[in-house]
C-alpha cells in the first residue's frame, strides 16, 4: 500500500475512484486504464487525475474518440491477459459501444465454454442533476443489467467508490460500473485499512421499521434525506443501497420488507421497465403475505431526458420519495 492510500482521509467520490484505480494499477501490472481524455486531462471529471503521469502512457491510455473501438480493443487486451478498465465519458455516449458490450463482452466466456474470461470494467458516469446538455444525464443501467454475462454495480458514496472499483477490477467477470456523476464531489472519511463490504452485496444504510426504501447510485443520498425528513414526521424508513444491480442481492430487501410490510423503489431511470420493476416483482413473489401495500416505484417519466431547465421536475427528489411513502401507507 502506498503512502498516499494508507492514512484515514477526507475524500470525494471522484477521489475515492482515483485512489482505488491507483491502488489497482499498483497492485497488478496487468491493469490498464483506457478512455478519452483520461491521460493528461485526467478525464472530464478528473477521476484519473495524475495516473498517466505516474503509470505512463502504456498503462493509462488516451484512446481515439470511438467508444466501440475502446471496448472492442479492450476485449482483445483482456484476451491477451490484461485487465482493462475502460472509461466511457458520459452515459449517453456508451451506445456506440453497446454492440461490443452486449454481443462480445457479455457472451465471450459462454461462447468459449469457459476457456477465456473477460476481466474488464466499463466505467460510466451516469444520471442527471448537473445541468448538462443532451446525452449527458442518462440512466441506461437496465439495458446492461438485463444482459446475461455482465455484472452491473453502482457506488453511491466515496468510501464504496474506493473499494468497489478495486473489487470490480479484481473480478474475473466483466463489470459495468455506474458512477453517480452528481455525487462525484460528495465527501466522506475513508479508512483504507478497513475491511470492505463485498462487491455483489446490497446494504442497509439506514435502519428503520415502518417502510423500506430501496435505491442505488445517486438516489441513495436522496432517500437518506427523505428518511431524515420522514423521521421528523414520525415515520421510520429503512433505506437499502442495492449497490449491485446484476446480480441483485435482495435477501436484505426481503428481510426488511417482512419487517416493514411496505416497499418503495427509487431510481433516476424510467419507472417503466426500470430496475424497480424487477425488485417489485421479486419482492411480491417472496414477501407476498408480508406486504401491507403494493410496491410503489419512483423514477422518471417515460420520455427522453429533458432539457436541463426542467430536470429538477423530471428527476425523483425528496418530495417524490415521501409522496410514494405516503401512497404506500394509504393502502
Amino acid at each position: 500500500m502506498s503512502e498516499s492510500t494508507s492514512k484515514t482521509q477526507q475524500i470525494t467520490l471522484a477521489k475515492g475512484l482515483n485512489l482505488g484505480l491507483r491502488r489497482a494499477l499498483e497492485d497488478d501490472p496487468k491493469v490498464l486504464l483506457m478512455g478519452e481524455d483520461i491521460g493528461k486531462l485526467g478525464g472530464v471529471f478528473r477521476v484519473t487525475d495524475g495516473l498517466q503521469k505516474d503509470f505512463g502512457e502504456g498503462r493509462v491510455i488516451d484512446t481515439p474518440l470511438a467508444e466501440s473501438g475502446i471496448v472492442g480493443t479492450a476485449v482483445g487486451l483482456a484476451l491477451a491477459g490484461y485487465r482493462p478498465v475502460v472509461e466511457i465519458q458520459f452515459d449517453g455516449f456508451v451506445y456506440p459501444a453497446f454492440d461490443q458490450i452486449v454481443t462480445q463482452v457479455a457472451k465471450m466466456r459462454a461462447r468459449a465454454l469457459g476457456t477465456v474470461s473477460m476481466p474488464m470494467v466499463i466505467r460510466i458516469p451516469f444520471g442527471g442533476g448537473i445541468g448538462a446538455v443532451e446525452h449527458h444525464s442518462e440512466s441506461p443501467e437496465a439495458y446492461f443489467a438485463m444482459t446475461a454475462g455482465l455484472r452491473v454495480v453502482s457506488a453511491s458514496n466515496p468510501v464504496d467508490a474506493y473499494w468497489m472499483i478495486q473489487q470490480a477490477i479484481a473480478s474475473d467477470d466483466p463489470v459495468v460500473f455506474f458512477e453517480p456523476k452528481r455525487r462525484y464531489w460528495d465527501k466522506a472519511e475513508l479508512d483504507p485499512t478497513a475491511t470492505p463490504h463485498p462487491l455483489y452485496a446490497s446494504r442497509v444504510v439506514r435502519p428503520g421499521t415502518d417502510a423500506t426504501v430501496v435505491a442505488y447510485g445517486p438516489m441513495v443520498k436522496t432517500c437518506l434525506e427523505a428518511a431524515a425528513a420522514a423521521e421528523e414526521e414520525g415515520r421510520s424508513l429503512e433505506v437499502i443501497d442495492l449497490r449491485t444491480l446484476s446480480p441483485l442481492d435482495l435477501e436484505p430487501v426481503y428481510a426488511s420488507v417482512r419487517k416493514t410490510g411496505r416497499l418503495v423503489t427509487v431510481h433516476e431511470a424510467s419507472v417503466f421497465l426500470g430496475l424497480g420493476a424487477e425488485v417489485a416483482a421479486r419482492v411480491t413473489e417472496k414477501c407476498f403475505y408480508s406486504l401491507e401495500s403494493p410496491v410503489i416505484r419512483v423514477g422518471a417519466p417515460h420520455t427522453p431526458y429533458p432539457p436541463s431547465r426542467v430536470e429538477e421536475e423530471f428527476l425523483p427528489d425528496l418530495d417524490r420519495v415521501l409522496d410514494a411513502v405516503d401512497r404506500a401507507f394509504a393502502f
Partner: protein
Amino acid sequence: MVTSRKGAGGKTAAKKKAAATAPDLVQLLTPEGDLVEHPDYSIDLTPEEYRGLYRDMVLVRRIDAEGTALQRQGELGLWAPLLGQEAAQVGSGRAQTAEDYAFPTYREHGVAWCRDVDPVNLLGMFRGVNNGGWDPNEKNFHLYTIVIGSQTLHATGYAMGMQRDGREAAVIAYFGDGASSQGDVNEAFVFASVNNAPVVFFCQNNQWAISEPNERQFRVPLYQRAAGFGFPGVRVDGNDVLACLAVTRAALERARSGNGPMLVEAFTYRMGAHTTSDDPTRYRNSDELEEWKAKDPILRMRAFLEKNDYADEAFFKGVDDEADEVAADIRARCITMPDPKPVSIFDHVYAEPHPLMDEERAEYGAYWESFEGAH
C-alpha cells in the same frame, strides 16, 4: 507444414515469366500455373512445400464440401462455404507462425486447418451444439465471430497486448468486403494505426456481401483505404496461394518487427453461396462464375506442380484419397456429436459464483427433469 520448413534447403528454380496482371495486383502464379516476377514480393519454396500448399487447399475444399453436404442432410443448421477462397486462406494461414494469433470471421475453415484446429470444432456452432466451442488460446485461433467486423477490434487489442508484452509475434484479423463498411473495422484501422499495433488486416474481397456487390460497399479500391489510415495496403491475387503466402508473410514479419499494421486485400471470389441459406442465382449471373472458375486456385497450383514435375499422378491421387478420409472422419464425428444438456447453458456465463445462475439452474433443472425421458 510449410511454415516449419524454413531453411530446409532444396530451393527450386521454377521458370518465371514477366507479370501480365494489373499493376496493383500482386500475382506470383498465373491461372495457367506459371510463376511470374513481382518487384516487391517473391516466393521460393521446396517442391515438398509447394505440394504441401496444394494438399492443404484440396483438403480444405473437401472439408468445406462435407460441411455443405452435412447441412443439406440436416446434420448442420447452416454452413458458410469457403469454396473459391482456398488460396487466400491457406496462403495467409501458412504465413503465420505458431506464436501469431488469428481472429477469424465464420468462414475461415481453411485458416483453422492451417492453425491445426480440429475441423470438427468448427461444426459445433453450425450444428447448434455450442456457440463457439474451442479454447482460442490452444491454437491461437480465436472463436468464429458472426457479428460483422467486431473481431477486427479484438485483434487490434490483442496486438496491443502483444506489443506491451514484447512478444515476437503478430495478429492477423480476417474480414470481408462487406465488413469494410462497418464502423468497427474502420475504428480498428484507427486504433491499430495510432498504436502502431502489430496486426495485419486480411480482407478477403470475395466480391459479394451476401447479395450486394463491391460497388454497394465502396467506391475506392479497398487496399487504397489503408493510406488514409496511415499504413500500407496491398492487393493480392486471392486465388494465388503463392502470392497470398508471400504477401501475408511479409506483412506479418513487418508487424512483428515493430513497423505497425498493414492491410492485405485478397482479391478473390465466393464460388458458392454466402451460406447454405442463400441463393446466389437471384443476384449474380453465371458468366461471372465461369470467369472466376478459370482462375481456380487449386487447378492453377496443380498445373504448376505438373509443369515443373514436382508431383506425379500418385501424389494427386494420394491427396484426393486423404481428402475423402478426412471428410469421412469429420462426418462420423459430426453426426455423433452429443446435444448439450439443457442445464449446461448456465455453466459458463460467469467466471465467479452468481446467485441468479444458481437459482435458475436449480429451478429450470428441476422442471426439465420432471418430464419423462428428460435429458
